[in-house]
């Protein structure tokens, strides 16, 4: 494909808008309105009234549920997206270059939704602001202070990475971009000169290094530590949680990237831009990550059923009687078998729709596992004061919680629909401009 044709293909969504796009936009805007209605309802009634999520202060019960599960899930998704893009830059894996931009945008949107899930779980958004205001005091004992710190850190780095990488591109193709967003482009390219290109590349390289190094420190560090350092919750406590959670997060992240890139490929007929072999490579990595997730699950169960301490035994026993747990196991096993069939016999088994279906199954499975992990850990507290606070807790997500959680997925869809019309979704080479 000649460079000009390639540019035309990538800029096409920015220069033309189809009826199908508007139809999708309307659907997602309606979804957003429904989300806002549900959120307003929760804000007015109070979290406890509409979800039954208790708190450790007065009402007992299980204080974390689907929202915090959703938070962990979104964070995991976010860390994989930009990691692919950073790997393209640092390790020179040029074959993934066509999906780098989509992955970056996914990271920014997913992180925003991770933060939003915390807002949903806390109830009032102004409490988050208080946590920031009192950060030097709250950081000593509040998991949320850590959450806010690392999400802000990662979001700021991701946004900076995305914006810096866009500068040269937008300056070069400015005359072909929609005039309606001119003010935004002016802000993005403020003070741009071609002499900065080389240094910006170097700045981006270091940013990518930092982002890659932060993936195990955050998805395999701070986020698991919010749980695994608390000795009172038997299912959480332990040093293996970091490695297990990082594996799960990367699994759901890769699944997310596959789904989003497949949608873009289908929507704009980019089969020659985002080629089959990219999906095959992703499928191979996904297969081994999902296999590792099974391996960690096996460790959890064996530790829990073989002469475990009382609470861990009780918890694992309860887990094994839970249909959700077996649903997760089935999701993992079916996915791994299907993925290895795809790798081994691509001619017979590999197809992008099938890969997207498996990715969707894996995404839902990981979400299910995260929510189970959080709730089960809270149902069997080991040590006072937690044991005195709620001797027995039970939890199942209400319709409203599902509504709000699915609303965050709708918001990400809306974000992508908007981004498609504002920036090129595949990186273009500014040097190629005639």
């Amino acid at each position, binding site marked *: 494909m000649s460079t000009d044709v390639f540019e035309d293909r990538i800029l096409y969504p920015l220069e033309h808008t189809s009826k199908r796009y508007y139809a999708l936009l309307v659907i997602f805007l309606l979804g957003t309105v429904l989300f806002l209605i549900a959120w*307003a309802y929760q*804000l*007015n009634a*109070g979290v406890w009234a509409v979800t039954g999520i208790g708190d450790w202060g007065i009402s007992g019960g299980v204080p974390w549920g689907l929202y915090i599960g959703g938070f962990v899930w979104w964070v995991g998704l976010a860390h994989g997206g930009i990691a692919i893009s950073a790997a393209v830059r640092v390790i020179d894996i040029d074959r993934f270059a066509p999906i780098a931009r989509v992955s970056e945008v996914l990271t920014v949107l997913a992180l925003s939704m991770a933060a939003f899930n915390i*807002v949903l779980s806390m109830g*009032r*958004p*102004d*409490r*988050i*602001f208080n946590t*920031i205001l009192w950060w030097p*005091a709250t*950081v*000593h*004992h509040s998991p949320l202070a*850590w959450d806010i*710190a*690392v999400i*802000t*850190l990662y*979001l*700021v*780095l991701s*946004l*900076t990475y995305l*914006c*810096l990488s866009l500068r040269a591109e937008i300056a070069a193709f400015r005359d072909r971009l929609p005039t309606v967003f001119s003010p935004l482009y002016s802000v993005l390219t403020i*003070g741009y000169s071609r*002499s*900065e290109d*080389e*240094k*910006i590349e*170097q*700045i981006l*390289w*270091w*940013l990518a*290094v*930092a*982002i890659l*190094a*932060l993936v195990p*420190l*955050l998805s395999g*560090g*701070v986020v698991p530590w919010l749980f695994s350092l608390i000795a009172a919750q038997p299912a959480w406590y332990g040093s293996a949680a970091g490695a297990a959670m990082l594996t799960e997060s990367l699994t759901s992240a890769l699944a997310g990237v596959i789904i989003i890139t497949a949608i873009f490929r289908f929507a704009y007929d980019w089969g020659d831009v985002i080629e089959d072999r990219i999906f095959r490579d992703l499928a191979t990595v996904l297969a081994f990550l999902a296999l590792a997730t099974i391996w960690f699950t096996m460790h959890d169960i064996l530790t829990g059923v073989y002469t475990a301490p009382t609470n861990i035994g009780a918890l694992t026993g309860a887990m094994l009687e839970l249909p959700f747990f077996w649903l997760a196991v089935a999701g993992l096993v079916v996915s791994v078998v299907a993925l290895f069939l795809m790798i081994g016999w691509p001619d017979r088994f590999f197809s992008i729709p099938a890969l997207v279906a498996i990715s969707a199954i894996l995404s839902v499975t990981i979400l299910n596992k995260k929510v189970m992990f959080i709730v089960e850990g809270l149902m069997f507290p080991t040590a006072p004061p937690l044991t005195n606070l709620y001797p027995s807790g039970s939890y199942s997500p209400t319709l409203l919680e599902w509504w709000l959680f699915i609303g965050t997925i709708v918001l990400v869809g809306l974000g992508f629909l908007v981004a498609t019309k504002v920036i090129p979704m595949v990186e273009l080479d500014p040097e190629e401009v005639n």
Partner: protein
Amino acid sequence: MAHETIHLGLYVIFGIIMLPVYVMILGWLIGKPRNYRAVAMAFGYIVGFIILIIAGLLVVGLVTSVLTPY
């Protein structure tokens, strides 16, 4: 809650978690090509986004505090 001592968590955050960021900033400043204007701009983006996020939270928090009955 007052805390007299510096907690382990602070060492973890500023000593370990932030290490990649320190290395990145060093790389920006020391690495070739030298161009402090571009580095200043990258810092500008970072500071700008931090302000944007906190200001956004403040606005959303204030609006909801006004709208909710509590």
